[in-house]
């Protein structure tokens, strides 16, 4: 039986169709049509994240993301979410180091409503102390959840604070507790005026939409919004690390753990691809090196090597992070030593061709699966555009992974996984009494 072309895997094309336009006010529009289901993913990516903050106002980008839901001149707090959700939409937002993103995955018949509401909150956001004060408390509670009370939250904050001495990636997206407590409505309004305008906005419409009609709708709702021009910024860079850095976090904990970060590359750098494959060879799947060496035999409770996946990789050079949790009752120091030895062997001997082939197929397979989601396709195109200036890179991911050789893996392992390029933070368990004697957690 010959399968119909609809069900023939070999006939499937992974390329994402993209129609890109720039409005006169600087707004970038990317339309990714896919007419097979009556749904659309509407995404607004603003080019503002914690990288745009300064000491003293850390966390303001993320706090502002919350404030965008607190009402406009004609709509009450959270009405934005209520209206779109009642049409079946999934509504949310997230803030990263490089951007703040708002999205609505909707039945396509409500696309215009989504655009109208997004334009309304960009133009007519209404903020006063009655809405600001409770939202600030919500964010302070969120910080406790994500950083203070979460098992490795403070360790991760310490890692980035130690690894970056000059680049804004040194502070957490959620912000420092002290800064959050002192943020004012006035700070937020000033931040809004500088960063929320069409010149810093990429709109993505992925799914059941006609590019021409989508363009008209976006022009109708956003075309007249003025662009005040971007404030002068200068590129940030972190000087090369000149020796291993170490820190300790003491906390009530049942386990000993460590996070080790190596400075690597940004999203647009060609070495991103061999580095992601290297991370997959180390901890992607049960056949991976670290799973077989450490996790399966119980030497580590868990051991992961993480490099933010596409399209969430950072705009500036990021950290590749080893997260190791010791098995109960076994010392962390011994585990750490064995992990470094294993990495040294890899840096000396490289990887086997079968390991690389497996990692390539795993990453290809994950990408193919994700490409079925309009939301994911939209993120790929929108965030490649925002962080590298080239959305079409999204269509070269599979080829870029495929082109990596064993020699590339060896080279990136030798270049980046050097002890001098490493920052290690360990979580050292203490009793509740000792924890209390160290002062309040914040």
């Amino acid at each position, binding site marked *: 039986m010959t399968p119909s072309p609809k*069900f023939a*895997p070999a006939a*499937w094309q992974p390329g994402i169709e993209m129609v890109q336009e720039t409005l006169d006010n600087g707004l970038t529009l990317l339309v990714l049509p896919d007419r097979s*289901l009556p749904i659309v993913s509407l995404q607004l990516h603003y080019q503002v994240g914690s990288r745009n903050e300064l000491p003293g106002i850390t966390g303001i980008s993320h706090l502002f993301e919350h404030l965008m839901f607190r009402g406009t001149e004609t709509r009450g707090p959270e009405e934005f979410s209520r209206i779109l959700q009642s049409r*079946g939409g999934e509504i949310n937002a997230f803030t990263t180091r490089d951007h703040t993103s708002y999205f609505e995955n909707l039945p396509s018949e409500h696309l215009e409503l989504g655009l109208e509401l997004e334009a309304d909150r960009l133009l007519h956001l209404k903020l006063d102390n009655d809405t600001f004060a*409770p939202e600030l408390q919500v964010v302070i*509670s969120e910080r406790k959840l994500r950083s203070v009370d979460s098992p490795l939250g403070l360790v991760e904050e310490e890692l980035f604070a130690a690894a970056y001495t000059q680049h804004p990636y040194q502070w957490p997206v959620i912000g420092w507790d002290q800064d959050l407590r002192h943020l004012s409505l006035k700070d937020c309004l000033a931040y809004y005026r500088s960063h929320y305008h069409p010149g810093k906005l990429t709109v993505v419409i992925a799914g059941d939409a006609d590019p021409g009609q989508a363009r008209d709708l976006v022009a109708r709702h956003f075309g007249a919004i003025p662009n005040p021009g971007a404030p002068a910024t200068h590129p940030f860079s972190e000087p090369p690390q000149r020796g291993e850095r170490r820190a300790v976090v003491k906390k009530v904990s049942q386990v000993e753990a460590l996070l080790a970060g190596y400075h690597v590359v940004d999203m647009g750098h060609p070495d991103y691809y061999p580095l992601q494959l290297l991370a997959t060879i180390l901890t992607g799947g049960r*056949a991976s090196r670290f799973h077989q060496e450490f996790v399966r035999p119980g030497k580590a409770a*868990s051991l992961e090597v993480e490099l933010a996946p596409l399209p969430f990789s950072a705009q500036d050079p990021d950290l590749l992070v080893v997260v190791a949790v010791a098995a109960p009752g076994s010392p962390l120091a011994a585990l750490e030593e064995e992990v470094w030895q294993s990495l040294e062997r890899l840096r000396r001997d490289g990887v086997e061709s079968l390991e690389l082939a497996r990692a390539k197929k795993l990453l290809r397979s994950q990408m193919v699966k994700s490409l079925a989601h309009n939301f994911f396709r939209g993120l790929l195109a929108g965030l490649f555009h925002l962080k590298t200036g080239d959305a079409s890179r999204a269509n070269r991911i599979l080829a870029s992974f495929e082109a990596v050789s064993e020699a590339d893996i060896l080279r990136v392992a030798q270049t980046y996984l050097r002890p001098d390029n490493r920052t290690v933070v360990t979580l050292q368990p203490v009793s509740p009494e000792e924890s209390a004697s160290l002062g309040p*957690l914040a």
Partner: protein
Amino acid sequence: MPNYIPEIHQATLPNGMNLLGVEYARAPWLSLTFMAKRGSETDPPGKAGVADWAAELLTLGSAGRSQLQLAQDIEARGASLSGRSGFDATLISLEGLAEDFEEHLATLAEIVQTPAFPEDEFLLIRERRRAELVQQLQDPREMASLRYLRLFFGDSPYGHPAPGDLRTLDALSLADLQGFYQREFTPGTSTLVAVGMVEFPTLVREAGRLWGNFRGGGPASPAFTAPPDKVCSPGIYLLDRPDLTQSEIRVGHLGLPRSHPDYFPLKLVNYILGEGGFSSRLMTRIRSDLGFTYGIRSSFSFRRAPGPFIISTFTPAANTAAVVQEIGRVVRDLRQQGLTSQELEEAQSYYVGHFPLGLENPGGISRLLLSIDLFDLGRDYLQGYCEQIRGVSLKTAAQSAQEHLHPESLVILVMGPAARYAEALQELGAVQFLEAS
């Protein structure tokens, strides 16, 4: 747009096993799941984890291949294999690129039909679980949720954690796992679900060849459908964790089985109460008006037997008593005053509008098929879903809130720095302190 709702195909294999499939064209993907319709509810008393460990052990080597060989072969195709058990069912899933359809189907058959139950892997699972469970208890949210189930259901079949319990890990033996497999993996109570870029006739042919002779064991345990003999008495229970800065709060009572005729009205009521994000009453009151939490939600676990209804949230310690009090007030209001027609319409249009989003990827469709099969919802379930939602009247929904929400018999667990709010909670009702174990 033409009818976008996928057709569910069904066939019965020669051995009586059920086969359900959806042909999927958005990406060259295949999601395969073998479901044995018995799960962690069959774990013997004091042996939490038997079903779930058995499911994992199946994925760690077959009669013909070691764990390493199996992992290498599967991952060389970019595929992933998992075995897990929850309440009511055990799932062995393999998903990967559709170009490798025949290999995936054959590998899954090998794993389910010719297990090896290697002793060394069993011992390693135990140690890995010990480590995972210790880690899990590090997370206050996980810890509070687990403790709540134990507090609420006690020794009844839904009261233990499916992955195992630190206190009883050492009681499990390899024979327990083999016993579970031999009893529950049998064609008459199993289903194979396939969603992917494969035509159904091809699937039927290959599944018949690879699965049609599977005899399995049995007889399967009787399906667990009864409500528990007893649940925890209503009241406030405190678990002291002086090291935390916030309180984790769980509030609930017994819910309904999936087969209950009020499923749809209650689903809509629960959306209005606490499932509907910023549209929900709990979120509006406790987050938006008071700023007391980052998130709060309510959920009914609809299972074969009545599962729990639970409201979950957390708050900085100082707000604890106020949050507990407000939750009670919001539930009471909804039960007594009912809901508005606008609230009901919004909940209905949410579920109707959201429906196609669940059909975008094979994993989502596969989950729908599994629950259609497990709860006998019928092959026309997807076609009729939106009508069922739209058909709920304001009167039915209000009756359902009145009948199935019980603000007077809430079991409330608060975990956090108790010294900072125990007194305030005592003003709301009798408080009992729980032991830390």
